[in-house]
């Protein structure tokens, strides 16, 4: 449980961090360290350099700007959980946060760290997909913004380049008559999601579905938008029967994970059942 030797760098500004990242090969960004440090202690990862970005105060904020909520990548799970701005304007995030790990993890772990690590069973990716977020990344040569669904490439693999740092998550503020919910089945020992389903849905006054986004984690090697479910609901008048029918599409077209905790069939079943529950709960909150 002792990591291999490494050099430890503590930049205090983003520019310093970016320049350190571009000059050192085999460097890893350290945010909250709740995935990377255990992996290093087990010697499953042994980077030569760690660039600790937790002292960069510019990466730690939740604020509203131009119809969006902006969250700095270094914002901890607990800060999101307790944000009054998010609770009022984007409650899906404050609902999802308490499902992550335990108190210690939520006090240290960060939103950006979780997204960049891209664990296939992490909670945030489902919520981030469901709120239609954009992800801003920067390198010493510039910045770019990606849609959440383009950010996740494969298991533990994102569109981040080796010289880039995830800096900000941008969430469009949902319109009136929007409801959301997160449903999760925990693996009892680790607390990771066997399956997690996040839903954000907007209905008009006739209960016609204007917008719906369903993000699913834990089921496949990467988190994904359940497009089949969304297409069955968009433009339709919502009732319980339709929600149940749409939820049946939750695992369509994916290659489900299978391990000692849950087979592919069981995971797919959980995804369908919990998509239905998440949809029902989200609609009931409108």
């Amino acid at each position: 449980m002792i990591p291999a030797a490494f050099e430890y760098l503590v930049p205090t500004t983003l520019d310093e961090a970016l320049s350190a990242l571009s000059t050192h090969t085999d460097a890893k960004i350290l945010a909250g360290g709740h995935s990377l440090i255990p992996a290093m202690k087990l010697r499953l990862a042994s980077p030569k350099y760690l660039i600790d970005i937790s002292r960069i105060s510019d990466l730690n904020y939740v604020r509203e700007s131009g119809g969006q909520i902006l969250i700095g990548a270094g914002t901890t799970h607990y800060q999101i959980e307790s944000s009054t701005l998010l609770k009022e304007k984007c409650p899906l995030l404050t609902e999802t946060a308490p499902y992550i790990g335990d108190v210690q993890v939520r006090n240290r772990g960060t939103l950006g760290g979780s997204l960049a690590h891209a664990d296939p069973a992490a909670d945030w990716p489902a919520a981030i997909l469901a709120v239609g977020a954009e992800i801003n990344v920067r390198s010493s040569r510039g910045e770019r913004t990606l849609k959440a669904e383009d950010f996740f490439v494969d298991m533990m693999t994102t569109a981040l380049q080796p010289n880039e740092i995830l800096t900000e998550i941008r969430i469009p503020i949902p319109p009136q008559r929007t409801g959301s919910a997160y449903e999760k089945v925990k693996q009892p020992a680790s607390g990771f999601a066997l399956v997690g389903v996040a839903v954000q849905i907007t209905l008009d006054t006739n209960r016609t579905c204007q917008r719906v986004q369903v993000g699913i984690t834990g089921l496949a090697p990467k988190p994904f938008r359940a497009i089949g479910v969304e297409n069955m609901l968009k433009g339709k008048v919502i009732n319980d029967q339709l929600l149940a029918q749409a939820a049946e599409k939750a695992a369509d077209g994916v290659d489900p994970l299978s391990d000692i905790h849950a087979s592919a069939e069981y995971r797919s079943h959980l995804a369908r059942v919990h998509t239905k529950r998440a949809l029902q709960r989200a609609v009931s909150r409108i």
Partner: protein
Amino acid sequence: MRIEGNHTLKGKPEKVWNTLTDPEILAKCLPGCEKLEKTEEDTYKATLNMGIGSIKGTYTGQVKLVDKQPYSSFKMIVEGKGGPGFVKGEGILNLQEQNDHTLITYQGDAQVGGTIASVGQRMIQASAKMIIGQFFTALDMLQEQQPPSSETSSGGAPSGSSSPPPNFFFKVTLRYLWNELKKILRIKN
């Protein structure tokens, strides 16, 4: 752990067979392959530095090809160990012609042990799939770059012009990322 799947490669089985059994080409397509040397007929010693995301490790091991039925099937026996754990397994690869392409189906069993198995259990199967996918994608692109069938049975002469460029896997990754980027740009337009 059961591993099975299939992949279609360009070219007829004769060409694909020669590619698949050529250590020089394999060394360029195996993700993170640092060294692949022939120790005896159909037996190779390999050093691989592979991983997914931040989880990386160096493995050394042996790959043996047996029961070779030219152009149609062979069995592969793999044994390796490294810091994070060990892997042992064997599988059969079948080659089948399909409209000038070759359908490769593979099935086998692998045992993974050590740290990686005790803490990474939930990701091992998907990692294996991902690495196999990377291997075939690299192989397919490498085949494309080769001159058509002229020197298929080169036997291992360290040829200059036809041998694939170094860091081939890196280039494949770059091209993949470029395609992703193009996709993203198109969406935004």
